[in-house]
């Protein structure tokens, strides 16, 4: 369980603001320890010693990027914020590329905090890729078999022959599944160099960090409004997110953003690791601790309390989520104030007041099969 142990150390803190957990012990019969404790208590702060700068690119659709490797790592390790642009979640592109181009093995193995975890993360991306290839191969073979079947029928083949082919197909599927699990164990790397790869190497022969960590708008708000982590004020951030002169802003421009933040904050503040759920057709995925530790068990859809969509919309999202064996939560946001007051609060930059004027209610949506609920 060595990996589990390093993961525990690596992801020790659920938030980028750390508690003061290194106070000396108090020894009741030793007054000196009291004084020392008090001294430590007063001198230590939760406040971060640095602020993380973000780069905001784009006009209408913005991307909030963190470029510094250390900062990228810090945000990932302390609450799993952001996604690497060329990775599934944790930004591992640079290390993968080093490995692929065989640079890492010789001299310039990159010196980051995550040195010890390189193999694991590599394995992840690599496995996904190999599984994908396997799937393609499987598909091709299946198509071939189907063609054979068609041919057979055209030539008036017998039922037995047909059965044989169908059996073959089933055999293939079993094979495929067996191979797939095999991949999880062994994995090999291919190191093809391509012309484009040269653009990745600077004059000193080092790899350029092409990948940035991208923050969701709501993550960025959380990291500046709720916790002082980013080097940008919430007012400035919001004016970039809604790039309009203040007097022209309408309720429609801000309501979605507010709604999404309300829900994001709601779950974050109960300890969930909240990540984008776009793959599953919903707003958020909820992880108990974070992606390295377990699957997300909940998918959250954000709705207005008075919103009603066509039934097909719910059922198709539910089908996707049910297929991945996760629970679908509909999180409804109810506005307690008239729209113009909300707009007023936004314009005056009073986000604390603004966010506390909404409340949330939750529904679990689950397919119900009568036959399975009879006793």
């Amino acid at each position: 369980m060595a990996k589990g142990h390093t993961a525990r150390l690596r992801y020790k803190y659920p938030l980028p603001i750390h508690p003061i957990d290194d106070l000396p012990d108090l020894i009741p019969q030793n007054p000196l320890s009291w004084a020392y404790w008090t001294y430590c208590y007063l001198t230590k702060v939760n406040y971060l010693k640095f602020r993380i700068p973000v780069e905001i690119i784009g006009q209408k659709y913005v991307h909030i990027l963190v470029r510094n490797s250390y900062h990228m790592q810090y945000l990932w390790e302390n609450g799993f914020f952001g996604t690497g642009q060329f990775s599934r979640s944790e930004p591992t592109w640079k290390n993968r590329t080093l490995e692929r181009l065989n640079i890492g093995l010789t001299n310039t193995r990159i010196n980051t905090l995550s040195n010890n975890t390189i193999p694991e993360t590599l394995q992840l991306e690599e496995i996904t890729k190999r599984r994908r290839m396997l799937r393609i191969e499987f598909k091709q073979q299946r198509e071939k078999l189907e063609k054979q079947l068609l041919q057979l029928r055209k030539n008036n083949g017998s039922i037995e022959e047909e059965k044989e082919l169908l059996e073959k197909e089933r055999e293939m599927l079993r094979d495929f599944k067996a191979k797939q699990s095999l991949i999880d164990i062994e994995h090999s790397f291919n190191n093809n160099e391509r012309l484009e790869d040269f653009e990745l190497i600077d004059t000193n022969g080092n790899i350029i960090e092409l990948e940035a960590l991208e923050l969701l708008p709501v993550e960025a708000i959380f990291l500046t409004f709720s916790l002082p982590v980013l080097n940008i004020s919430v007012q400035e951030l919001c004016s970039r997110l809604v790039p309009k002169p203040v007097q022209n802003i309408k309720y429609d421009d801000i309501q979605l953003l507010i709604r999404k933040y309300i829900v994001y904050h709601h779950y974050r503040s109960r300890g969930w690791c909240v990540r984008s759920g776009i793959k599953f057709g919903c707003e958020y995925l909820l992880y108990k601790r974070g992606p390295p530790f377990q699957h997300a068990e909940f998918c959250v859809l954000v709705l207005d309390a008075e919103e009603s969509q066509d039934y097909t919309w719910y059922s198709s999202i539910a089908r996707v989520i049910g297929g991945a064996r996760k629970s679908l939560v509909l999180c409804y946001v109810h506005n307690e104030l008239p729209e113009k007051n909300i707009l007023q609060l936004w314009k005056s930059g009073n986000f604390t007041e603004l966010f506390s004027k909404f409340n949330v209610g939750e529904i679990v949506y689950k397919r119900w099969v009568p036959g399975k609920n009879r006793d």
Partner: protein
Amino acid sequence: MSTLDKDYENDPTKDALDDDEIDDDELTQDWSKIAALSKKNPNYTIPKRGEKDAVIDGTNAQELLLNNARNEMFEALENSVRGTMIKSQVKAYYLPLQHEAIVPHPKGNFLQSMGKADKQGRVFLKFHEFLYLAERGTITPYQTFCIQDPDSLEEQTIELQLSIQDLYSFFKSQDESDNFLVFAYLKRLGFIVNLTDSNDCDTTSFFPPPKKSILSNILNIYNTIRSIFTFHKLSLFNAFFYSKWNFLFNRYTTSGQIYVGLKKLIPFFKAPHTRYDLLSLNSQHKLSSDTSHKKQKLSNINFKPLKITFDVWKPQSNYKKKVPGLPDYQVVVFNKNDPHQRFPTYLEMRKIFDSLDYKFEYLSEITDDLSWNKYSYTNGMLRTAYLSSIKAKAQQQRSSQNPNNPKSKKKKNSRPTSQFVLQNRRLKNGYRSFLLCVIDSGIISFVKISETDFGSEDVWYVPPKNIKKYNK
């Protein structure tokens, strides 16, 4: 095994490959076995489904297979004639004015869960029960007419047998015909199904009669202290917490303390977790039911609000139709193609939740020896008292205990379950719930809609205490 490499599994495609539920249509309806069924043999097994092709390939072989499949299907339908031996037929007469049916000489198993008897021993069936039984062939539908003989000018009463087609034309509304579909669907699976607003029996309620005022008074006071929405009157706290001074002046020694600060910002709806929550919510609801829906009425003039249509009991042999206990489920029927209906909004769902009255099954997760007879009221009496007051006491008690028995056994097994498992169960199963039955041109599917409450559950990671430190 590492816990670290599970991320790739998030890919939805991975599970979809071998998901059995997802592709009902990958299976074929194989009517051949149904066709072969002997009508006399009730102990049939439902046939398995065969294999299908992926594409139309234009071959004779496929054409042949298709023809066979079609013939089997239509043969099965042709041979499946309604009605059984005439000797065992029970006649039921449609009463157009009442839109129900009367059975003068009732007999048969269906009487256990359907129909209302009068003093002469005749039984009255609701229209949907009538049609369902006629479709099954359990009863034969008739209607009587008074006609005048053109020769003798004498009035005479004749009875005519009705066809199923006749019966379908008697539906008064689309809603009624939708409800019939759902009723028949659940009945075929053995469920006991009653219209929620029917008053054919002594109704049982989870909620005490309103006049017993001592409890409700106390609850009202309790309510004024704790409102439905837990609005945190914490604006001062929040104003400081989210100011730049917070982390300069405060000293948080655990992550939990930071979370406690964070979670005070967004108010949330706290679902009723306990019996007391439910009771107090109910009495409060009764007091303020007029004002709370004003806003809604304005916005959905075009839509009929959905409401609870059916009470449903799991299949059981000891159901007492005169005094049924609390239902196991409550069903809301929703026709997705009806332009006057829509998927309920949250506010509409809340209205439905507040009108629920069934075995709130989640309560049995909390209370170990939950006996529903002690927690429900029949005719304004506590159900245990009510049951012991009527004659067939011994029988009744057996019937009422039976559904609880398996549950209490389960509970004993689950007692040592960890806090995390229990918490997960609460989050996933939620609290009050209803079944939304969706009708799509004759196809029926169910969705369970439950309240859940993430706001009341903290899940942040608490690192294990460092043992070395303690030793020192």
